[in-house]
């Protein structure tokens, strides 16, 4: 790998990790959901510092072009992130569903209580 390119990759991946950590610190990202991103950014840093990993992975998996091994690894992390997102969305959708139903039921109860009270007064 070209050493200038490697330097850029190392710097940008470290900046990316700092960016994520900062987001978590400012409570813009929930650590629980940002964990996949942290792991990913850490993996990119390691790969940027030790590009041999890519070459040996390619060798181990009988991938001729090391760049393809890199794509494979990146794809793996992206799939991981997207999948955890889908899980989170499903859970959130279920929670919203239950909340909306409970609010609807509560609104009716409150309205009934209000009417009863009014009836008692007059």
């Amino acid at each position: 790998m070209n050493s200038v390119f490697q330097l850029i990759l190392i710097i940008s991946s470290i900046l990316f990790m700092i960016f994520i950590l900062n987001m978590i610190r400012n409570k813009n990202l929930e650590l629980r959901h940002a964990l996949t991103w942290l792991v990913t950014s850490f993996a990119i840093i390691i790969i940027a510092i030790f590009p041999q990993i890519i070459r040996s992975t390619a060798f181990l998996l009988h991938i001729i072009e090391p760049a393809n091994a890199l794509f494979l690894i990146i794809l793996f992390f992206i799939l991981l992130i997207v999948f955890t997102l889908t899980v989170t969305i499903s859970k959130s959708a279920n929670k919203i569903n239950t909340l909306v139903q409970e609010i609807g039921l509560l609104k009716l109860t409150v309205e009934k209580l209000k009417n009863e009270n009014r009836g008692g007064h007059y």
Partner: protein
Amino acid sequence: MEKVLIIIPAFNEESNIGQLLDNIKKECPQFDIIVVNDCSKDNTSIVCKSRQINVIDLPVNLGIGGAVQTGYKYALNLGYDIAVQVDGDGQHNPIYIQKLVNKVEQGVDMCIGSRYIEKKGFQSTLARRIGIKYFSREIYLLSKQKITDPTSGARACNKAVIKYFANSYPKDYPEPETIIALKNRDFTISETPVIMNEREEGKSSITAMKSIYYMIKVTLAMIIASIAKKEK
């Protein structure tokens, strides 16, 4: 005397629901009614309230499954023995509500009103009938239960099923899926003939564009429901 609740999910049904509520009051005044207004943009809620009917106004549109489930939660909270589901569009004639309730009182867990037993009244379009036949066959394959009208939204169920539905109900296109889910948990299901009307106004929730998605989704949902874990 069993406590019976009629659950009516409604989304933009201001032109149909008034007539439906009047008919229900005339045919079965002894039953309570709850309308679940799924965040309608029109005056559905006001039309119901002007008739002294209890309305649950959902703050966000949940779709038919979420709306119906709200009704079952209400039934569970207030301890109803039997819940009858009636579509808000006036397709279901209220004279059959008593018939559905009777079946449940006789001991079946859920009774579905079917328009294909006596084949009278509105029979839907050919394309829909083919789709319904297909679901009917799939249900038979998955659960060995003969259901002639699996997409019918006219159904009555007892307390055990109310409790199950309050806890778990599919989000969209729920009817065929719930049949499998109930059979999978050893509930009994029967059908009784009803005559349905053509929709008075408004459109069915299933348009041509959505029908392919609908077929695939319901097919998969039924297969998954048949192999789902049985938490009762």
